[in-house]
């Protein structure tokens, strides 16, 4: 579908498959390079620096220099590390992320395969990546790596649940809308969800969903403010602390590829992906531009959150997922079910979801105020009680190096 239609020639299946794989690898590499460079530049701007400038025009070749450095670096394995787990872990972490490219719709016709269960596929396969993380953590035979890996696993499992539930809510809305055209069973395919957003991006119908998805995405990707598994000041780099050279590079590539893919997924589900909200027919060129603009905006948001928010504590992270996000996601699913099964209009869904989002914001604000009050009282009565205060992270950029 991708290349044969693009090039306008017919080719045998095996050649098509190989070309698609090459296409993915090239796209992934370019995206990773661009993301690393972009992260360094954007983060530098947030911190009133200029970022890399020396390699190439305005530093654009910095990522390539980093990659060269990684490739030529010595690949070290600690003598007490478990050989098989240590050597295989980067691949276990990387391959699932690579597979998630399959159902991603970059334009209306540019995808590898439009899976009917595309959304389930994304989460099922992406979840396997945590196995590689735990393998690395255990195989390194390093207690900081182990701590980081356990944190990563706990975080991944906790945030996967609200994320999946909110995707279920989105699919319910999509199925309700697609049923009007008589094909509700296509609601699991990402491309048909995007195709349905010709007039209304789903962020208007599911604002709570967008919020929970972004939070879950940041947590799944170990991006600040949810970067406890790889926090330098707490676990000296987390599960890949013992890795160097290209193995470390594979973890890094997996992380950036997952960032790119989840951002594409989020923009497909909530912002309309390749679709333009005002008018149905968009040409291929405009679709590419739309996808790029939407993903770039979201990438800047994700990278900006790294500069803007202080890191949470691990217990705050867990209780936020289980006590706040999960109940709200369940309520959203139930609300969608009730509204849609009684034939409620789309705007009712949107208003209910927006109301839930406001309620979530109010709840978080109330909890924070109460906690602040408690903290003040604790300090007054028993000044010796240690309060763990997490300082905002002001470490220099470590992207590209290790």
């Amino acid at each position, binding site marked *: 579908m991708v290349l044969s239609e693009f090039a306008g020639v017919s080719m045998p299946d095996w050649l098509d498959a190989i070309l698609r794989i090459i296409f993915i690898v090239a796209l992934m590499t370019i995206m990773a390079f661009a993301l690393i460079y972009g992260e360094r530049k954007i983060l530098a701007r947030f911190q009133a620096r200029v970022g890399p400038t020396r390699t190439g025009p305005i530093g654009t070749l910095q990522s390539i220099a980093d990659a060269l450095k990684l490739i030529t670096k010595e690949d070290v394995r600690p003598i007490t590390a478990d050989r*098989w787990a240590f050597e295989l872990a980067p691949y276990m972490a990387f391959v699932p992320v690579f597979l998630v490219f399959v159902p991603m719709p970059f334009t209306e016709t540019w995808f590898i395969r439009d899976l009917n*269960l595309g959304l389930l596929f994304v989460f*099922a396969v992406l979840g396997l990546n945590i196995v590689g993380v735990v393998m690395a953590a*255990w195989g390194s035979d390093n207690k900081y790596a182990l701590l980081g890996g356990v944190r990563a*696993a706990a975080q991944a499992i906790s945030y996967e649940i609200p994320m999946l539930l909110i995707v279920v809510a989105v699919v319910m809305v999509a199925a309700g809308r697609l049923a009007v055209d008589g094909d509700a*069973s296509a609601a699991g395919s990402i491309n048909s969800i995007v195709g349905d957003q010709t007039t209304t991006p789903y962020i208007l119908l599911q604002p709570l969903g967008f919020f929970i998805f972004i939070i879950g995405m940041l947590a799944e990707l170990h991006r600040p403010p949810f970067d406890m598994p790889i926090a330098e000041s707490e676990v000296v780099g987390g599960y890949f602390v013992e890795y160097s050279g290209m193995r470390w590079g594979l973890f890094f590539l997996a992380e950036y590829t997952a960032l790119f893919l989840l951002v594409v997924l989020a923009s497909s589900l909530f912002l309309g992906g390749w679709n333009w909200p005002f008018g149905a027919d968009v040409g291929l060129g405009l679709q590419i531009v739309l996808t790029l603009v939407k993903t770039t905006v979201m990438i800047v948001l994700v990278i900006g959150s790294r500069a803007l928010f202080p890191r949470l504590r691990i217990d705050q992270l867990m209780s936020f997922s289980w006590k706040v996000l999960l109940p709200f996601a369940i309520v959203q699913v139930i609300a969608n079910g009730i509204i849609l099964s009684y034939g409620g209009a789309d705007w009712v869904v949107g208003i209910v979801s927006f109301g839930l989002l406001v309620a979530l914001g109010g709840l978080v604000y109330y909890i924070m105020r109460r906690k602040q009050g408690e903290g003040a009282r604790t300090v007054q009565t028993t000044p010796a009680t240690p309060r763990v205060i997490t300082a905002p992270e002001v470490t220099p950029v470590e992207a590209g190096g290790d």
Partner: protein
Amino acid sequence: MEDGVTATQVVFWILAVVMLVSAIGVITAGNIVYAALFFIAALAGVAGIYLILTVEFIALVQLLIYGSAVVILILFALMLTRARERPQALFGRSRPLGIAAALGLMAALIGGIVATTWTTPESSSAIQPVGLQTIGDAIFTIWIVPFIIVGVLLSIALDGAIMLASPDEDDN
């Protein structure tokens, strides 16, 4: 499909071999974390065979629930309970007896399967993929009561696991 060996069959046998070898790895590995990692490979093989049987939904659910959640739980448990990692403690005294019993079971099962005449469809064209909508209709109409009971069971199990694993009030 009926003539000779098709590509699907080749893939099936590769997956079957991967699955069975990993399963043997699970029960013979001297290192308990290796056993868990072999278990993942066996699960991936099972998921692949689900794919060959054209039930993508079950394959993906298998990966989602077993592949990530269950395996992570198991790895946690292994890490939490590895005070004394003696290889000899992994196998019981009655190992030969157990192997013999399991081999006997295997022989009985295979004998039964071979001896039975299965009324399979005449041609492969009679085997049609089961759509997701069919599965959904079945679960939410015929099997709705079991489905609800499973949901209640899951939440009770979750509560029970939290109760069991959480530390006592006077532990520290």
